[in-house]
């Protein structure tokens, strides 16, 4: 009998970690020093805070470099990192540092942020609580995906990877392990949060569950 999926929700409280950056070099140094929770916050929090909207780019690093330092070339390269290709936060950190180092070697990067517009390194603290929703089969899973709050989608899709050892998110793991839905799990892992809003991602999950259902029915 497959185990039920118990939906949880994440309540997030940001904390300033005491690191500020005003230049590309300081940003690089900050990314080197900041912990994984900070790196995670600046990569994903936009989806939590603005589940209704798309911002290009959603990564704070790319956004700040583009809109505050006005270094559009560097912002583009930072924004183009495909999150799905970074299996861990360590590999994401490596990618970010490599791009920043390369850019600093080939460009002058003299710009400083205007007064008060520094990059403030934050960390998300999240307390994860149970909700009343659970899914016992695929139809009830789709139903729950449609109605749970955005913080549940955010938690199971992104935050859960922080505590899992297998690199998967909770949804994919459940589909694969309990329902043998490897294709759906892989497609779900491939949803790129940098290209859509959390609302789009929710619709994307529902779409792929429906197409899997049709395939099975055929």
């Amino acid at each position, binding site marked *: 009998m497959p185990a039920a999926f118990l939906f949880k929700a994440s309540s997030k409280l940001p904390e300033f970690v005491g690191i500020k950056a005003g230049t590309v070099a300081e940003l690089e140094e900050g990314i080197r020093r900041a912990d994984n929770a900070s790196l995670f916050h600046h990569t994903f929090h936009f989806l939590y805070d603005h589940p209704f909207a798309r911002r290009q780019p959603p990564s704070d690093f790319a956004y700040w470099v583009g809109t505050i330092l006005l270094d559009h070339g560097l912002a583009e390269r930072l924004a183009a990192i495909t999150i799905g290709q970074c299996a861990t936060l360590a590999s994401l950190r490596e990618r970010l540092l490599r791009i920043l180092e390369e850019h600093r070697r080939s460009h002058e990067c003299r710009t400083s942020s205007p007064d008060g517009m520094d990059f403030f390194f934050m960390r998300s603290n999240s307390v994860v609580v149970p909700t009343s929703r659970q899914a016992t089969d695929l139809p009830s899973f789709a139903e729950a995906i449609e109605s749970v*709050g955005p913080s549940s989608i955010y938690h199971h899709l992104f935050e859960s990877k922080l505590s899992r050892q297998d690199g998967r998110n909770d949804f994919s793991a459940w589909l694969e392990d309990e329902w043998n839905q490897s294709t759906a799990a892989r497609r779900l892992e491939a949803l790129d949060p940098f290209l859509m809003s959390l609302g789009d991602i929710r619709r994307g999950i529902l779409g792929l569950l429906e197409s899997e259902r049709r395939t099975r029915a055929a």
Partner: protein
Amino acid sequence: MPHRLEDYVQVAGRDVVEEIRSLAARLEGFRVRHINSTAVGGGVAEILNRMVPLMRELGLDATWELIRGGEQFFAVTKSMHNALQGTAVALSPEMIRIYEDAQEENRRRLSFDGDLNIVHDPQPAGLLTPQTRGQARWIWRCHIDLSRPNPEAWGFLRPIVSAYDAGIFSSPKFVKDFVARTFIIPPSIDPLSDKNRDLSESEVRQVLETHRIDPSRPVVTQVSRFDAFKDPLGVIAAYREVKKAFDVQLVLAGGSADDDPEGAAILAQVREAAGQDRDIHVLCLPPTAHVQINALQRGSTIILQKSTKEGFGLTVAEALWKGRPVIGGAVGGITLQIKHQLTGILVNSVDGAAYYLKYLLANPAFAAQLAQNGREHVRQNYLLTRHLRDYLVLAVLVHTGAHGLVPVEELSRHRI
């Protein structure tokens, strides 16, 4: 009559209210003591008036204590407040004595029996001493911008607030690093208050008609004190530029400024600048005119907050909540509430304000999208329910010392 948590489901969503209940279930009987210096007037009192009853409804043992102090004490803390925001004010030994005497008197009068004592702003900050500490965690909640304090004032306050277990600021931009942990909790608006609740079309129309504002033509509104930093003269200049192309009306609504000589002078300048233009409505409203302000915002085509200097600027969240496109000055906390061209428009000049007013009037579909995003941004980030949830998470984190991702199962290992 305070609202119950269930009432917020209609605006914040069932999931948010459930999340709050789930968190609070871990904190039953948890003693939270909010301590500040005033029961009425100002944003802190407004928030605590609504927050503390909701905490109690959720099963926490929450109270709100007020410190006492005479006129001299409040004159000293007012100077200190200004100095901490950068004004050059010298703290004399006499001022320090008055501050310390009031702390001592309040230490004797109040009991500090909370699990979490949250002390708001500099006025009561000196209550924490080794004798009053007890078993509680002490948090200093700073509502002001401490990023560029007068060094003398900060030199006085720093050793006092450094004894706290954690600090809370409204924005990372306002932070001064002095404690082990610094949390960011922005202020919030109450969507069910008279200032923000939904109004019927007839309520809105009636207020517009009372002030002879024509609802059939575009209305641009700025609701603000008559204060130079809110740039009302810049707003009139921008309106005049827009008026060349669009048949707009301008509403500048603020307090009566009777007891504020500086405000009265600005108001006189505003009236002079408005001249005989019948499409400029300068309204002096009493501090209780919440429904009127609400209606003026809802009856507007575009809302402005063209500040040139601002603290958090919560009036922007109030404006965004009305589902109208908002143009704000790119200063202070306005830049957190308005993400340029996503949840509103940020401007740096009169020319910029005039250009974007015209742009939004010419592109109503874009304006409507900004307005919708702005309201959702507030729903997600600036409602009282988010604020309440933040305090519950804070209680868990500070009391357990946990950080990062904290699964609820972890909490059972700690005494809360």
